[in-house]
């Protein structure tokens, strides 16, 4: 009896053990897959820890967020977030006032190559809300100049990295329809051959957007239509990109002082090409060309901004930019040396007014030469010390002063399996926009280059399924360009902090929390400005359904109003090839608004500003088919 009882116990024990082992093995395969995902994401190939403080959007996160434009991502970032200016163009640093493009210190890169609008400045102008169907992942590096990649100084560098046909071979058709007749069509095809690979993405967006009431019969419009091509062909050591962007946009208030234009429209046609080659294991060369045609049509009952004698503008400009760089990388002992020379030539090719070619203004050319050197020294197996220096010389014609800018950076990185710590001490310089100097010579002739001194620190702790990270930044601007009162004698000071906490319940359920606080002193006419934001995102998968909920919260000391931008999506993965997604943006219609300033030109008195959010409330349905 005891024998049978024992056998029964042993048998049950064996069955239990077998079940337990099976579950354990299954978990092993699952956990192995999770580990593989983390370590083999393409972002792991491109992240450069030494570039600075990173906010990363992996492919998996972009897919789960159903982020379709750079704007969908940029609206969630800390420190600097998505804004549009009075022309409805992406301009995160805009003050809402009457000013030239203000975000030239934010630079945009595609596969490591800067996309610039040349004369117009940063590529963000046109690519700030670009369709990102061709993108694998996005990296935002904050505050510290990225010497390796930048030709011109920058405070924020945004890197878009394209999909790799090795992981995304074949085709994909994406169709989106949404509120107010908004619709997007996108086609993607990539193929890996034995010796090379290529990818082509074509997308069309008919961006029907919310109108802005301005107290007249003609509310302000910012509808746009864009057609973009992104393509590349690459081998092991060479790559060629071709990008074309055509964007026709209603430009909101445009050049109307009181934001009541009779007509306001800007059409862009942009071409970007670049070719990169690894000459040897150590030497890399890159050449790029950007061309931009801009057509502006502005009309008002009263004279326009910048045209005191005219209430109508029909202008067309063409400009081109050539960029070349030669870089060298090598590891000598414990030193990883990185140096290079870069050059850029911007030219305003032609100006047409009312269809007739007119002489270009005296200031129509800018040449930039940059040199950089960086040494990363492995102090111990866990510690890295880095030193970087970059010098930019900017030469201009037309009597506009040249600039000579010096950037310095000292960094320290400690890393272990669970902890990591980074600290940077830096000095960076940026100059006032040359167009400001050209248009307002008397008020800008004495403005020196802004020098920013800063110390930043980042500490993070990672353990299995969770990560916590704290970033602290202290900065001070001498000759700040962000002060609206040019007479101000005080230095602008910043203290910013970002706290991230990510928790992965399992492979299907995840929560990401980001909190941001900044205190500014003597900025934008404020003695003190406090800015707070949060981004709370939840990712869940149940069977064939993916759920995403993200809330962006903003609040600042201007009025302490709370703004909430809630984005939610449900995706049904019908099968391996077909996905149907229902998504809502700004569902509460309480996304952050900023002021657009207006003036009564007859009295030159300020009018009540318009409060505008760059984020539309929109419901979309999307069909995605892969073949």
């Amino acid at each position, binding site marked *: 009896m005891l024998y049978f009882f024992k056998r029964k116990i042993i048998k049950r024990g064996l069955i239990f053990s077998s079940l337990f082992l*099976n579950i354990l*093995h*299954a978990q*092993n*395969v699952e956990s*192995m*897959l999770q*580990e*593989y*995902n983390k*370590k*083999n*994401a*393409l972002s*792991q*190939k491109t*992240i*450069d*820890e*030494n570039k600075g403080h990173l906010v990363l959007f*992996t*492919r*998996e*996160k*972009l*897919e789960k967020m159903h982020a379709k434009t750079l704007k969908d991502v940029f609206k969630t970032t800390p420190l600097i977030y998505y804004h549009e200016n009075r022309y409805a163009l992406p301009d995160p640093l805009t003050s809402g006032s009457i000013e030239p493009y203000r975000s030239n210190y934010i630079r945009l890169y595609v596969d490591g190559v800067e996309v610039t609008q040349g004369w117009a400045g940063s590529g963000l102008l046109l690519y700030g809300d670009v369709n990102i169907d061709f993108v*694998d992942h996005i990296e935002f590096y904050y505050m510290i100049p990225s010497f*390796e990649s930048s030709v011109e100084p920058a405070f924020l560098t945004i890197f878009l990295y394209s999909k*790799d046909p*090795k*992981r*995304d*071979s*074949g085709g994909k058709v994406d169709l989106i329809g949404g509120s107010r007749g908004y619709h997007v069509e996108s086609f993607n095809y990539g*193929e*890996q*051959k*034995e010796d090379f690979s290529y990818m082509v993405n074509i997308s069309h967006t008919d961006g029907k957007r919310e109108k802005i009431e301005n107290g007249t019969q003609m509310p302000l419009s910012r509808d746009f239509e864009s057609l973009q091509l992104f393509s590349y062909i690459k081998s*092991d*050591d060479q790559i060629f990109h071709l990008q074309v962007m055509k964007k026709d946009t209603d430009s909101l208030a445009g050049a109307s002082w009181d934001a009541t234009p009779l007509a306001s429209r800007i059409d862009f046609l942009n071409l970007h090409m670049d070719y990169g080659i*690894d000459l040897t*294991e*150590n030497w890399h060369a890159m050449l790029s060309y950007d061309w931009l045609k801009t057509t502006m049509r502005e009309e008002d009952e009263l004279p326009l901004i910048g045209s005191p004698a005219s209430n109508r503008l029909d202008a067309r400009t063409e400009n081109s930019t050539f960029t070349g760089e030669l870089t060298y*990388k090598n*590891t000598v002992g414990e030193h*990883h040396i*990185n140096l290079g020379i870069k050059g850029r030539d911007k030219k305003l090719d032609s100006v047409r007014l009312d269809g007739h070619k007119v002489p270009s203004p005296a200031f129509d050319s800018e040449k930039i030469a940059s040199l950089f050197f960086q040494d*990363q020294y*492995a102090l111990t*197996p*866990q*510690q*890295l010390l880095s030193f970087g220096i970059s010098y930019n010389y900017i030469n201009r014609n037309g009597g506009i002063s040249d600039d000579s800018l010096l950037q310095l950076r000292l960094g320290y*990185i400690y*890393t*272990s*399996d669970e902890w*990591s710590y980074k600290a940077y001490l830096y000095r960076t310089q940026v100059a006032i926009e040359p167009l400001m100097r050209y248009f307002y010579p008397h008020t800008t002739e004495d403005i020196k280059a802004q020098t920013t001194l800063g110390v930043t620190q980042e500490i993070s702790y990672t353990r299995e399924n969770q990560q916590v990270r704290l970033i602290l930044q202290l900065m001070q601007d001498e000759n700040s360009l962000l002060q609206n009162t040019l007479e101000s004698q005080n230095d602008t000071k910043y203290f910013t902090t970002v706290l991230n906490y990510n928790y992965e319940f399992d492979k299907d359920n995840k929560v990401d929390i980001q909190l941001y606080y900044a205190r500014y002193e003597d900025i934008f006419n404020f003695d003190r400005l406090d800015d707070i934001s949060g981004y709370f995102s939840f990712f869940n998968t149940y069977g064939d359904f993916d759920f995403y909920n993200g809330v962006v919260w903003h609040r600042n000391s201007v009025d302490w109003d709370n703004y909430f931008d809630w984005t939610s999506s449900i995706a049904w993965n019908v099968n*391996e090839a077909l996905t149907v997604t229902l998504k809502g943006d700004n569902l509460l219609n309480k996304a952050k608004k900023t002021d657009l300033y207006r003036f009564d030109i007859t009295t030159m008195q300020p009018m009540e500003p318009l409060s505008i959010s760059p984020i539309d409330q929109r419901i979309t349905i999307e069909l995605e088919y892969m*073949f």
Partner: protein
Amino acid sequence: MKKIFILLILVYGHLFALEKESTLKIYHQIFSSLVSKPTISVYTNDKEYKNVFSQSNKINLVNEVSVADIVLITNRPTLFNVMKDLQWMQQEGEKPILFVTDYRLLKYSLDIVGAFYWRKGRSQLLFIKKRLDQYHISLPQEYHAFMVDEL
């Protein structure tokens, strides 16, 4: 040491997308479930996978399809070349197991038993039961969650 080394590698020269340790771990697991041998002969013409597999003492890289236990295929032209070779080999009664890294390749040949591929930023493992049966392969229980009867 490993972390700093990775850091330096990441900013240096031409880069490979595959992380060796985790890639070897998963492929050891997959290949061992398909072939019960202490050392498995694998054919692949993909440079990145060759580079990773060359670090393994459980995988023996071979230069010909005919002597491989498993053929790992990463692109369509290679698949078609291998399929041509296989036609000839089937007459000889020899047949390596075909495994791919792209879901779309599964439809081209019934000889492909499974795929380990990327979909929307996540790796996916998939075995096709009917095709495994052709090879008389019975996978351990832990793989049943990754198996479908047919495509």
